[in-house]
């Protein structure tokens, strides 16, 4: 029973994203689905730090952006055929930078941690503007060619993204269910207790931060290939904010919540964007409603229903025996 329940989200995930290929709603919607799935990975990676470990990083755009810029610039500088390798290099680049940023920021807690991660991300965002000849400044980098295998039609690239994202998400899923994942969850709930279990809170947080940055980097690299263009906005603070929004809307206490959040946010932007240029206003309203009605996110709703019945309540007395 437990097994099926554990794998149900995966089944839905496959039905949705594979089913889309079968229905084939046209390149525009395949492109939208590709965006959702890439943002989904970005949000799930971010949620390892946020929902699981309990750290509100407001600088994850940095790792997403590093993934995108490294991949894009390497393709520009050499050949698109090594695109796959460059995504990996971008992810390792993001992980490498995150090590140093984590080393400095994780010494702080709460709002101080949040503000310092924001500061680092904004610093790099500012740099990409200034270093015009290197990063393309405000214009970013355009016309990043795809490797031959993925060129021509968005469907191929969607399939490629789907495979990469699924593998990445599967790894993150395994991590969340591992002993290490339990420790991270323990750190969120009670860091003092973790210390007095003989475990180092700081080191475990740093590990989680690096893993999270690595997969955010992969998402960034994938996005660079999707549109063939990158721009400083990918490093800007709203991109960091989007990660928080997607995880919160979808349900930060669930594993797949951030993917749902990515779908809602990206889908809304698409639908509302057709009718009005003030789409962010309407998204704000929707976010407000979701946060007020479902404080645990859309996938977190089930946590309200089906908890605690009377039988369970009665058990409390049984427990109090002291042997």
């Amino acid at each position, binding site marked *: 029973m437990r097994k099926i329940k554990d794998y149900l989200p995966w089944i839905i995930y496959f039905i949705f994203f594979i089913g889309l290929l079968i229905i084939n709603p046209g390149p525009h919607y395949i492109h939208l689905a590709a965006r959702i799935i890439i943002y989904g990975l970005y949000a799930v990676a971010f949620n390892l730090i946020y929902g699981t470990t309990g750290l509100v990083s407001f600088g994850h755009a940095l790792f997403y952006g590093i993934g995108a810029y490294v991949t894009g610039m390497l393709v520009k500088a050499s050949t698109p055929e090594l695109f796959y390798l460059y995504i990996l290099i971008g992810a390792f680049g993001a992980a490498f930078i995150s090590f140093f940023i984590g080393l400095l920021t994780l010494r702080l807690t709460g709002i101080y941690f949040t503000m310092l991660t924001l500061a680092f991300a904004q610093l790099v965002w500012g740099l990409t503007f200034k270093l015009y000849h290197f990063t393309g400044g405000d214009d970013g980098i355009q016309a990043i060619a795809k490797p031959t295998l993925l060129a021509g039609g968005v469907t191929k690239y969607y399939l490629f993204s789907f495979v990469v994202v699924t593998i990445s998400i599967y790894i993150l899923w395994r991590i969340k269910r*591992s002993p290490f994942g339990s420790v991270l969850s323990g750190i969120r709930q009670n860091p003092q207790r973790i210390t007095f279990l003989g475990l180092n809170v700081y080191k475990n947080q740093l590990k989680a931060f690096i893993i999270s940055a690595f997969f955010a980097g992969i998402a960034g690299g994938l996005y660079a290939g999707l549109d063939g263009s990158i721009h400083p906005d990918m490093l800007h603070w709203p991109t960091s904010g989007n990660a928080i929004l997607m995880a919160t809307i979808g349900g930060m206490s669930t594993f797949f919540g951030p993917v749902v959040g990515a779908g809602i946010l990206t889908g809304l932007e698409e639908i509302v964007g057709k009718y009005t240029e003030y789409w962010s206003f309407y998204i704000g309203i929707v976010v407000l409603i979701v946060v007020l009605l479902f404080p645990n996110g859309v996938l977190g709703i089930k946590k309200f229903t089906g908890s605690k019945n009377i039988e*369970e309540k009665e058990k409390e007395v049984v*427990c109090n*025996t002291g*042997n």
Partner: protein
Amino acid sequence: MSAILEIKNLNKHFGGIHVANNINMSIKKGEMSAIIGPNGAGKTTLFNLITGFIPSDDGKVFFEGQDITNTRPETIVKLGIIRAFQVASVFLEETVYDNIYLASLAHFNKSAKIFADRMIFKDVHEHTEFILKKLGLFDCKDLKASELSHGDMKALDIAIALTLQPKILLLDEPTAGMAPEERFKMMHLIKELHDYFKLTLVFIEHDMDIVFSIAQTIRVLVQGQLIAEGNPDYIRQHEGVIEAYLGKEVF
């Protein structure tokens, strides 16, 4: 009996307050001892100093002959000095079982495993069940920690500490905030655990009935100073203790 924990000339100031004033003590292996003293006497601070939670200003702490002064708390835990807290320190969102399971993972050095499913370890499961049964928590293993009664939550906190198989267990007011009936149960539990695991146990306690009925040695802290140390009979008649803390009317 030889000393397992030795404290030499330990000092700590919080601003102008001398919370640990040249404390010397030697805790024997297998001993069940209590630390008593009025509020603000520095009892919890002493635990914090021993466990490395706060650094000391001056003095040394030796555990099994090894200098552990100002060592990181995690390292001290690994050596076998384990504590439970005045306010139960558990993982509120997890079930009782998962609380102990997580502690067991740490105990078996499996907590760094990153890809393995956390539930596959047979030895960890066995140890978890053993601890839960020993502490009388097995019947409520599927309850969330946040749903437990106050007494059970304290028991869970102690269970987490015991999961790590301490060489010396420090309990900070194990019966704080409990109803008299619950206190009585807790006292028996502590006594039983001490005998069963052959623990060296130090507990801070305000309930004098409990202290005088189960402690073999009692140490009295007043304003950061250790003013008396001895068996219950000795402490009961110690004039300094009566004056500073117990009050004549108690006996």
